[in-house]
């Protein structure tokens, strides 16, 4: 029993930072616009990140190579540099959106200006990173994110038409460009690359070996499964409340309204608290991912476990990225708008970082007997096809729908 609890807690810690402002925004908007019709896209995205993360974690544990090591080694300098530049831009934009998201939630809880909260959030993050060990950081945000289970409670409180909900899990393609845009958006928000890059580097921070492969698989399936349940819940509560009223959730605060409706102030506080930890965890993950990728590509010493003295360039780059994120978050652009772009750009850049991992994970000369089996190979290539299609469609759809504005 104790072992199960330990594993469960480990899983939860591992996936903190998965549900980020992108998921909060896109799921709520998807529910408001299309009720339950996009639930299948959420599930598709969640399975996708489980596949990508499992492969990355396995590669890291068996070969000691995190994602950008794999990318540089397999794709060479030129293509690797392209992947690095694209990935860095996406990560910095994501970080800015998350910092802005933290500030918005704080503004909803306390009476003080947004700008102040952005800086306060950054300082708090630096403090948390400086004071807690790597595992502690993960646990802090992972457990806090569990507050968001009030969403699941809200679903049952609302008691929607379960038949209708069930039909939402069956894929259907509406021809409207807005629908297709949200298919891409919901999927991409679930399959954010920073999460996987952070996860694979985290595996090495924690000194994973072949013995951790089972843990890796549990994290991928159960961990992201839990995240997926929350994402599905967000679509349902939003679809139930907002769709009939025609509400357009353009604000982050709107995400918490269904929980307020169901459970009053308690529901609201649990929802906002959960959102705070989720977005905070995502800020950590995306900022670290940016530094991990840069350091790994260039061959610098890296890792939170090394400490600032042994990995000074890695540490300095993390601070620089944090400052860039603050600057963008303060620039007056609505974080929700930044999110629309960071999510879309993420899926456009995704093939570049996904393919090398897929190739190495299936390569016996690197992975020995831990190379992709038939299931992993099939899923891996299937998802590569899906990702490429969505990557090509993403920008045209973004432009055609005016970033979901219709």
């Amino acid at each position, binding site marked *: 029993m104790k072992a199960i609890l330990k594993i469960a807690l480990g899983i939860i810690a591992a996936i903190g930072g998965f549900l980020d402002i992108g998921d909060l925004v896109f799921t709520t908007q998807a529910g408001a616009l299309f009720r339950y019709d996009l639930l299948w896209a959420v599930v598709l995205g969640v399975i996708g990140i489980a596949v990508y993360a499992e492969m990355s974690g396995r590669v890291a544990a068996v070969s000691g190579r995190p994602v950008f090591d794999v990318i540089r080694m397999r794709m060479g300098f030129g293509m690797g540099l392209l992947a690095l530049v694209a990935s860095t831009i996406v990560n910095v934009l994501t970080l800015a959106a998350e910092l802005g998201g933290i500030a918005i939630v704080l503004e909803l809880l306390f009476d003080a200006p*947004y700008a102040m909260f952005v800086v306060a959030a950054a300082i708090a993050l630096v403090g948390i990173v400086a004071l807690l060990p790597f595992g502690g950081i993960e646990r802090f945000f992972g457990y806090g994110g569990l507050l968001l289970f009030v969403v699941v409670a809200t679903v049952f409180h609302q008691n929607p038409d379960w038949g209708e909900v069930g039909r939402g899990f069956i894929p259907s393609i509406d021809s409207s460009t807005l629908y297709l845009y949200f298919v891409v958006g919901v999927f991409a928000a679930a399959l954010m690359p920073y999460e996987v890059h952070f996860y694979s580097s985290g595996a090495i921070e924690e000194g994973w070996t072949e013995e951790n492969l089972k843990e890796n698989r549990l994290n991928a399936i159960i961990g992201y499964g839990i995240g997926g349940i929350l994402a599905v819940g967000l679509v349902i509560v939003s679809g139930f409340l907002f769709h009939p*009223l025609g509400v357009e959730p*353009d*604000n982050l605060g709107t995400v918490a*309204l269904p929980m307020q409706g169901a459970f009053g*102030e308690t529901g*609201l*506080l649990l929802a906002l608290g959960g959102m705070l930890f989720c977005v905070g965890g995502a800020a950590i993950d995306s900022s670290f991912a940016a530094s991990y990728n840069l350091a790994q590509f260039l061959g610098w010493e890296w890792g939170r476990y090394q400490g600032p003295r042994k990995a000074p360039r890695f540490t300095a780059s993390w601070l620089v990225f944090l400052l860039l994120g603050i600057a963008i978050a303060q620039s007056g652009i*609505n974080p929700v708008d930044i999110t629309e772009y960071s999510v879309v750009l993420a899926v456009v850049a995704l093939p570049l970082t996904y393919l090398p991992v897929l190739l190495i994970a299936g390569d016996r000369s690197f992975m020995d007997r831990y190379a992709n089996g038939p299931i992993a190979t099939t899923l891996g290539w299937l998802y590569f096809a899906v990702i490429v299609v969505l990557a090509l469609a993403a920008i045209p759809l973004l432009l055609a729908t005016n970033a979901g504005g*219709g």
Partner: protein
Amino acid sequence: MIASGRKRARSAALAVLAALAIAFSGCGDLSNDELNRGVESLSALAAQGELVANGVARDATKTTYARAMARTLSEQAEHEAEKLADATLEEPETDDQRHAAVAVAEEIAGLLSTLQTFPGDEHHAELVEKHLGEAGEKADAIVAQLSGDAP
């Protein structure tokens, strides 16, 4: 502080387009569809405002949350009002609806502003909720008229 970036960006984009249109004379006015869209968003704002007001009326929410939400929604309604008021219409027959829409937008902005000022007052919130409901219905009526006018 947190203006609705997307609506603002759209207003800005429309303003730029309008300016270019004036320079190149004649085209780029607010089409019937866009007017429709604008009024629909008013209905959405009113609906969301109702939910927030309802929370205050039942004493089932946090005042900072209600205030911040009311402020944001009010600003969005105000922007929509400005956008509708500034635009030149493609179909001048819809001018009546446009004026009505601006009035509704102003009304919604005002009601939300009241909620922003009194985020803990249950009595005020009840009234705001009721009036927002009415304003939302007015917006829906305008949309219906516009759709009826559409060829």
